[in-house]
């Protein structure tokens, strides 16, 4: 009898959970669906859930009219580049903090975290001034550097929490066998650190891809990534629902897929290791 009750309860839970899940997901679902309609059907009353003429035209129009691929390429370069540079700088730092800690390690880590909390708007003018001075305005390299710097604290923190889980005994054993610092890093630590580095890369690409303060304020036509491209739809002309939907779908699809792989790392990365 107890089992019958629990089955009933499971059915109810299933229904409620699915209803809520689908409601939360609805705006994304609706955007994807609308992207395959014609503009006229996109604003049909009542809204069409089925029975519309499936078309890929919007995707072609978005690419043709605004050269979508250029924005996509900018996003890829900026998100990928800033992540790569960040990892390059952060791996040695996190390694030394995790394996050769000193009295000040904790303070340095907390200080790094505090730089992440500076409100961007407070330094908007100085940064644009520096950008003008060094001809970085509306360049991919400029934006790559800024995104690298704003995410560097998160990268260092995440790597640090991963590295700390590597058992130190293995290091000592390697040292006993006469491994030098270089060999230690290359042959002992790197293989064990790869999973942690991979998740850090994943999360950081997501954060950089979706960053929408500096990308909106430091780019114009040539270096604008997808965040800025989509923002240009805020002052639309005429019918644009289906095109907005197509552009949005293309902008979020890659990151949705990456994101679903990184659920677990998300918690660790965004709480700086405080919740695991």
């Amino acid at each position, binding site marked *: 009898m107890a089992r019958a009750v629990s089955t009933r309860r499971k059915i109810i839970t299933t229904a409620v959970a699915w209803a*809520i899940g689908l409601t939360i997901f609805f*705006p994304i679902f609706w955007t994807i669906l609308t992207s395959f309609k014609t503009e006229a059907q996109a604003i049909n009353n009542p809204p069409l859930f089925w029975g519309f003429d499936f078309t890929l035209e919007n995707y072609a129009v978005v690419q043709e009219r605004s050269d979508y691929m250029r924005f996509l390429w900018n996003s890829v370069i900026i998100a990928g580049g800033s992540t790569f540079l960040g990892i390059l700088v952060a791996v040695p730092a996190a390694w030394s903090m995790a394996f050769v800690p000193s009295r000040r390690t*904790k303070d*340095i880590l907390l200080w790094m975290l505090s730089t992440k*909390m500076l*409100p961007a708007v407070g330094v908007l003018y*100085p940064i644009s001034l520096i950008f003008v001075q060094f001809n970085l305005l509306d360049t991919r390299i400029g934006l790559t550097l800024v995104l690298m710097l704003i995410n560097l604290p998160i990268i260092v923190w995440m790597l640090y929490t991963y590295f700390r889980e590597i058992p130190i005994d293995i290091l000592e054993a390697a040292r006993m066998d006469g491994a030098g610092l270089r060999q230690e890093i290359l042959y002992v630590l790197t293989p064990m650190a790869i999973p942690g580095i991979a998740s850090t890369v994943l999360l950081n690409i997501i954060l950089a891809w979706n960053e929408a303060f500096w990308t909106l304020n430091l780019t114009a036509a040539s270096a604008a990534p997808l965040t800025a491209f989509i923002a240009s739809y805020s002052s639309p002309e005429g019918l644009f629902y289906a095109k907005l939907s197509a552009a949005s779908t293309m902008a979020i699809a890659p990151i*949705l897929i990456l994101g679903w792989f990184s659920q677990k790392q998300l918690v660790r990365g965004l709480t700086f*290791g405080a919740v695991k």
Partner: protein
Amino acid sequence: MATRHSRSAARLMMAPAVILLLGWMLVPLTMTVYFSFKRYLPMRGDSLERGLDWVGFENYVRFISSSSFWPSVQATLLIVGGVLVITVILGILLAILLDQPFWGQGVVRILVIAPFFVMPTVSALVWKNMMMDPVNGMFAHLWRFFGAEPVSWMSDASVQSIILIVSWQWLPFATLILLTAIQSLDSEQLEASEMDGAPVLARFWFIVLPHLGRAITIVILIQTIFLLSIFAEIFVTTGGSFGTRTLTYLIFQRVVDSQNIGLGSAGGVYAIILANIIALFLMRIVGKNLDR
């Protein structure tokens, strides 16, 4: 244990990250503080080359006494507070729900988390046009279906609309962290209380909620830091009108639209101080965690 050799090597390896972040923090910060004490209106001929007039605390006083300052504080508090209340309460409920056994757990989890990965400009524009448009939006269709007059969300309920959009973006974050915390709850304790006949509410109030305390604090602090600086969601929807001009947006307008760098910088210094007060609490929790 570590040799002197590896110690100095470690310091060397840390140097690039520390130097970069130090520069990233100090250079712009110094400039902002410097400008905040200057009269700097590039449109009226002030320029760095010719030197700027020192005005003392005038910008600080003017920023606070301007007629748009208090409304912006109010908008900020409403939006940050509203989003926090919604995401924390719904986040707890959702986390408890997702922790129960049911069919398709993995898929539902993915559906719930998805909004977090949508870039801010997309989620704001999708909500504004596809959901909240007074003629063609989904809400308008729903309202009409039930015989009600559709609402012009972005002008008549602008602050609520922003709160709704931002809550949708951050609910996954709160849910995910709280779910992780719930899953670490000792299930034996819960089962014992269940066998002792403790009602559901009592179990929630005396066992689950205290256990979640730390996670809730972390959610609140981290979200507050990010929410204080939301920008794109307002930029592409209301552009700061209809009472949605937050402190961040006000500073942005002072610097970019009215090109009053001195005034905007003074506002920036206020924002930095505010963020640091909240950050201090967060650091204390995170720091404690490091000692374990």
